């Protein structure tokens, strides 16, 4: 199918300029805020608490990679009007798609564990047992998405993300040694041991989670952004990507300046909440708990739905909460199953919540290079993308980063085996 794309713009819609930009804002900003989910907060907190400022430098290359990768998804969605799994299925056939879907599904299930772990941990701060909080939250999320009006609630979640500003304030109030911080940001260094590598992979994996690429592209397609609007709309992605990393920077900084400096081992959410003490004093736990709860619920509303959606899309099953169960049985089974398994797993007695949140993100980092590889093949296909294929710089950044990341993953596995 040769596809020569000429953007046809003889019709001019009534909205123009800034109003258009505002109308197009959304997919990128939402994706970015969901990015700071339970897994994200936990991973950044642990990173700061265990490794101080020493991994702060990684956020600069991560930001660049995030912008490149998200922009690729955005462009693919705009030009082809198809979701990522749809494109993968059509280009690579059912077999490869099947194995990739299994991997991404496993990875997403890990993230759903993390979201419910986040709900359990945040409500544990105010003394609610996870045997109460998790089932209620799971039921709430399921009902909200299937029966309720999620779109309306989404704005509330989004507004509540303002709570991340408290990390920025706390980070400044604690008066970190800015000179030292600047040095760490500008001079990359890495201890070649399994722990540090896993931490680095986790930070990459949580910031550039594989599932987000599927979600973002689906959101762009649903929104129906056109090629003629792409110029404005991509700023949505760029702003969002930078925003995520600013928040990540201050979470790591605040944890580094408090928990790492005090040499406290970080095991529970209450430990992680210490980072907010300079700002909130004895209310730090509540502030932290609120942020974590909002992040977890927000992502728990999106992630299982997005997972069920793109898997259904890959296998040609009807999908969407506007369909009845009898019309879309696979979709509803996947969605309900993901929520249920995610919630039940967290109810296992003695399961280490913070560790689950963190490890799921390391798994993200391992699957990420595979997903980027698929994206690179697709976006360089002229039959698909016409003149909107990747330029050389983006190809070099994305290819280089995924090769590097794959190398780090291999090194992590080898180092952790060798040490045993």
């Amino acid at each position, binding site marked *: *199918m*040769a*596809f020569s*794309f000429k953007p*046809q*713009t*003889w*019709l*001019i*819609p*009534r909205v123009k300029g800034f109003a258009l930009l505002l109308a197009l804002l959304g997919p990128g900003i939402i994706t970015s805020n969901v990015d700071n989910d339970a897994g994200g907060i936990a991973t950044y907190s642990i990173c700061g608490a265990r490794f101080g400022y020493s991994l702060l430098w990684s956020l600069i290359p991560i930001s660049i990679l995030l912008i490149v990768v998200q922009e690729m998804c955005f462009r693919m969605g705009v030009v*082809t*009007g*198809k979701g990522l799994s*749809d494109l993968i*299925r*059509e280009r690579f*056939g*059912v*077999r490869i*798609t*099947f194995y990739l879907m299994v991997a991404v599904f496993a990875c997403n299930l890990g993230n759903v564990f993390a979201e419910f772990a986040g709900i359990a941990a945040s409500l544990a701060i105010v003394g609610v047992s996870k045997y109460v909080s998790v089932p209620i939250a799971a039921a709430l999320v399921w009902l909200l998405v299937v029966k309720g009006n999620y779109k309306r609630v989404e704005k509330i979640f989004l507004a509540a993300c303002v709570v991340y500003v408290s990390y920025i304030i706390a980070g400044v109030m604690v008066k970190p040694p800015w000179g030292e911080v600047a040095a760490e940001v500008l001079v990359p260094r890495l201890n070649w041991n399994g722990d540090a590598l896993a931490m680095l992979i986790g930070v990459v994996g949580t910031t550039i989670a594989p599932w987000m690429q599927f979600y973002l592209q689906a959101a762009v*397609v649903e929104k*129906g952004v*056109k090629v003629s609007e792409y110029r404005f709309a991509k700023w949505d992605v760029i702003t969002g990507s930078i925003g995520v990393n600013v928040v990540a920077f201050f979470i790591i900084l605040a944890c580094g300046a408090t928990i790492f400096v005090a040499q406290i081992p970080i095991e529970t959410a209450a430990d992680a909440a210490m980072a907010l003490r300079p700002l909130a004093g004895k209310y730090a736990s509540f502030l932290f708990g609120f942020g974590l709860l909002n992040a977890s619920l927000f992502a728990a509303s999106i992630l299982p739905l997005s997972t069920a959606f793109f898997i259904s899309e890959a*296998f*040609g099953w*009807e999908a969407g909460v506007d369909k009845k169960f009898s019309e879309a049985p696979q979709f509803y089974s996947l969605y309900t199953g993901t929520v249920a398994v995610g919630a039940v797993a967290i109810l296992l007695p003695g399961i280490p919540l913070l560790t689950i949140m963190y490890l799921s993100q390391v798994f993200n980092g391992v699957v990420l290079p595979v997903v980027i590889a698929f994206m690179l093949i697709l976006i360089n296909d002229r039959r698909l993308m016409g003149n909107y294929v990747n330029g050389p710089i983006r190809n070099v950044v994305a290819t280089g980063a995924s090769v590097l990341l794959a190398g780090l993953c291999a090194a992590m596995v080898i180092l952790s085996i060798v040490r045993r």
Partner: protein
Amino acid sequence: MDVFIFLTDIIGKAAYSAEGRRLGKILDGVSDGRDPYPRIGYLICRRRRSRKRVRVPWEAVSGLKKEGIFLGEGAAEKFEPFKRRPGEVLLVADLWDKQVVDVNGAKLERVNDIHLLNTERELRVIHVDVGVRGILRRLNALRLFDAVTAWLFDYTVKERFVNWRFVQPLGEQLAAASVQLSVAGQRLRDLHPADLADIIEELPLPERAAVFAAFDDEKAAGILEAVNEPEMAVDLLEAVGEERAGDIIEEMDPDEAADVLAELDENQAEKLIGAMEDEEHADDLRELLAQEEGTAGSIMTTEYLAVKEGDTVANVFHRLKTAEDVEAYYYVYVVDDDDVLLGVFSLRDALRARRTTPAARLASERVVAAKIDDRPERVFELFGKYGFAALPVVDDDDKLRGVVTLYDAVAAMHPDFEKE
């Protein structure tokens, strides 16, 4: 050789000469796409060393075996290089893993496999497989799966096939030609515009445009009327080009056309209206466009039947028969020379009257009418109170300006109504 085989049984197999020499790998099947069950004239084989793609005529195939595809004597010498000819359908490139329309069920399906009839040295396409069995067959897991379900549940998952006569492919190159020519295309054109709109709305943008453009003006107008979002209607118009867009809008009900035009830049809308042949129709559109949103004027249509006092029933019938479109046809409105609304009678009144009876005698003098700047809620109340199927809309001088149908009033009050 089995009589029924699947595309999976051929694709990816090695091709051997009569002497058992390995020639290459089978990549695709080529059909002219013409008969109700099109014949597969050629296979595409990628040669082993040169990696060139060549045509293998199906007649040259002497045996289909597990190990590969065996060709008859001397076939290997006569290969010609493959280049796609116009009108040819490639089973893998165009159909496998792609979406098609099942015109019988009026919905989109993804092709998992293709079911072929292999008789008398002819290979023909019979069904596309859209079921789970097709996926499992491609994954080489069908037998295992059947054994497990039979053992556990004493159950076998059923095949889900769509007869080729109901399959409308969607590849961009294919769509335009095959919607107009193929058996399925004929059936697609026979679907109700509302069903077509549902299908088209689910397609990715480029294919959406290609399929839409393949319908004639009248059908296209019907589809645009049924499309839920005016923005999407604008996209579709954009895709067909300026000239056809004007023709299609002219075919639409004026109130629906005005909704679409209202999405456009004013100059653009005026340009499209100005190009219309029917001056009266153009003026109606201008008037509808000028109506303020959220008033009776914005939801009314200008396609109604108005007669003078002296007109007879015979005149009324003649007008009804010859008028191009009368959206609100259940009532006939009586006006004076200045368009002032004098009375109304129903079609049923007219049917029961003599053909020579003048309109003035039939018309009831007390007319319930909405004011042009009434809010839709008020119009809705009038419908509820009087139970009419349509209401005339008058301005401050009691001049008849349009008619609101019950459908339009309900749709204005409940935006979801049109989506159902």
